[in-house]
């Protein structure tokens, strides 16, 4: 997977956000080595679209989300948002664009200040930018709380510890939508929640999207969750893009061997599906400090050939709306070897 390239990007004038050749690296102590967290990733989001970013831990999906927010700044690449290149913005200008671009984090409890009241947490963005009078701000907070299913009269004066995890995530969502942003980056917003609450929050995000006309980048490791919310899915592996596709095609006919393996690893709530008859991926994600040459997935790929080590595959279109970075994409109907066959142990 390696994939670099921009074949999957759409016309720049249509997109709300366009990220090109994004690179993020972190130093490893004073060793001079670096973690290649995100290497040459390009993606774009149309207004009103939900883009799903999916992959296992260490694939760079959260780093991509944060680098778009310039937290931290990427090493290179451009982030065009709303007509401006975020990587060149500084100080006030940068902070002002962040009112239009919000983030929702994974752990709802630790991302809220425990010592502040819910109303102050939600109103903070409004207060910093002095958006409206005090009365208008209070009204906006009430509206946002109602919209996410909290009762302003009863709960505005409470503090985060008085709420459950699902409710705290509702507060985070209210805080994100209150300044009327255009884009919300949701970084694993439901991973810490129970399934019954997860469904509530996913439904709520869909409602918020309709109500506030939002565009979402939805980052998660659970492909079923991402499929449910997304209009377009980007599958990442070790800092690179493997596959970009619309959700239904991705599920029906994954083009990248990694996508196919990922799909087959998901436990299906159906007792008639025998786990040992499904394909599986052997091995684990290699270290991003010394990623494999060529295609970064080749060390785990059952289809890998010599060329995969020598040459990095470029993103190419395999079907309308489906792009893959692989020398040997999966043919229609092709499946990976099953666990019985290759014994992943």
């Amino acid at each position, binding site marked *: 997977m390696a994939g670099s390239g921009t074949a999957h990007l759409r016309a720049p004038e249509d997109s709300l956000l366009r990220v090109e050749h994004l690179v993020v690296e972190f130093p490893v102590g004073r060793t001079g080595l670096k973690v290649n967290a995100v290497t040459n990733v390009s993606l774009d989001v149309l207004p009103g679209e939900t883009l799903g970013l999916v992959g*296992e831990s260490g694939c760079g999906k959260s780093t991509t989300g944060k680098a778009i927010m310039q937290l931290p700044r990427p090493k290179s690449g451009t982030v065009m948002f709303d007509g401006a290149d975020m990587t060149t913005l500084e100080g006030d200008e940068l902070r002002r664009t962040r009112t239009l671009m919000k983030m929702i984090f994974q752990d709802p409890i630790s991302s809220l200040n425990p010592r502040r009241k819910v109303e102050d947490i939600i109103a903070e963005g409004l207060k910093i930018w002095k958006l409206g009078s005090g009365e208008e701000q209070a009204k906006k907070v009430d509206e946002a709380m109602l919209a996410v299913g909290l009762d302003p009269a009863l709960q505005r004066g409470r503090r985060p510890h008085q709420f459950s995890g699902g409710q705290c995530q509702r507060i985070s969502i209210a805080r994100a939508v209150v300044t009327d942003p255009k884009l919300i980056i949701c970084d694993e917003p439901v991973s810490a929640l*129970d399934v*019954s609450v997860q469904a*509530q929050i996913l439904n709520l995000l869909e409602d918020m999207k309709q109500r506030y006309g939002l565009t979402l980048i939805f980052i998660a*490791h*659970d492909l079923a969750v991402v499929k*449910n919310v997304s209009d377009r899915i980007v599958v990442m592996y070790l800092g690179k893009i493997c596959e970009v596709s619309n*959700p239904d095609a991705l599920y029906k006919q994954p083009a990248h061997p990694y996508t196919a*393996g990922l799909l087959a690893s*998901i436990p299906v709530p159906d007792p008639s599906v025998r786990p040992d008859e499904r394909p599986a991926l052997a091995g684990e994600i290699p270290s991003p400090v010394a990623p494999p040459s060529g295609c970064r997935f080749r060390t785990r790929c059952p289809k890998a050939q010599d060329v995969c080590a020598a040459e990095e595959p470029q993103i190419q279109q395999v079907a309308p709306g489906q792009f893959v970075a692989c020398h040997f994409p999966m043919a229609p109907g092709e499946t990976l070897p099953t666990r019985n066959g290759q014994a992943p142990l």
Partner: protein
Amino acid sequence: MSPWRRKPTADRFADAPLDGPLLDVDGVRTYFKTPRGLVRAVDGVSLTLERGKTLGVVGESGSGKSVLSRSIMGLLPNNVERHGSIKFEGREIGESGTDVMRAYWGTQMSMVFQDPMTSLNPVMKIGKQITEPLRYHLDVSRDYAEDTALALLQSVGIPEAERRLEEYPHQLSGGMRQRVMIAIALACGPKLLFADEPTTALDVTVQAQILDLLHKQQSERFMAMVLVTHDLGVVAGRAESTAVMYAGQIVEFAPTRELFNATRHPYTEALLKSIPKLSQASHTRLEAIVGRPPDLVDPPVGCKFAARCPYAQPRCLEEEPALTDAEMPGHAYRCFYPVGTEAGKRALADNLAAGVTAAGLPVGTAATTSETATTVVV
């Protein structure tokens, strides 16, 4: 080294009967004493487990699934009240203290915990952590223990096992650490393995590998396993029978296939419906379960799920349903108006017609039109 030099404990179990269930749990109640009052974490759980079989225990956080396995293992803190009977190979261990249970740990039953980061000792080499239970419980020589540790590491699929024995936990990835945890748990050949959310902290491709490994080890050793998880997908293909827990009780117990195909309890049904499925088109609206589980300090009278249940009738609010047998042997549920029966259909139809359940939960069109407004949870 003095406490380590003790008689091997395995001999004590030489006369254990081989017929009858391996584990027989009856009416176990585990209450935590807290400043707020008694937390009824496990409130009357009964189950049996045969040798070599897998039992799945499914529930959301706070349903008591982990506390149940810890109650059976005797791994509970001091601020706890424990009642009920736990029989292991016919012997009562429900009242046993740590000194007695120590003989069971490792050789008879052991546990794989959720978080491999925090359950390994960070300042002890992997090899030492695997040989420790062998030396302690089986009183074998150091050389023998080291050879066994190497064989164990190889059998759980760790490459370059010899080198790994000399490494520390931080040098391994999460998946490798969980393999080491499994090797430690299997070291003394237990008859019963508790896997408490063994894959929750792992990536999905690694999760599949670890579940395969547990399954392989289990069938090779003819070991029974209690697989505790919040993910119905994990138990679906791997457990012979499944218990669904809610608010400290088993609300439905059935052979796994039966549980999915002939669901009786509304909570199980709701749980199955709320999971996003890959086979659904994207943007399919999920059927969320409104509200949240009850407070276990002050649980409601009647059925604990009534407040969130679309089938709820006045009777559910007053009377607590007992575990009732379904037509299929081995299938039991706790509900007056079970899913898929005449009573259940009628209860749901009545509620849909009224637009509201006996517990005041809006259902049908009333619920969908005002979903966000009515999910106000105080």
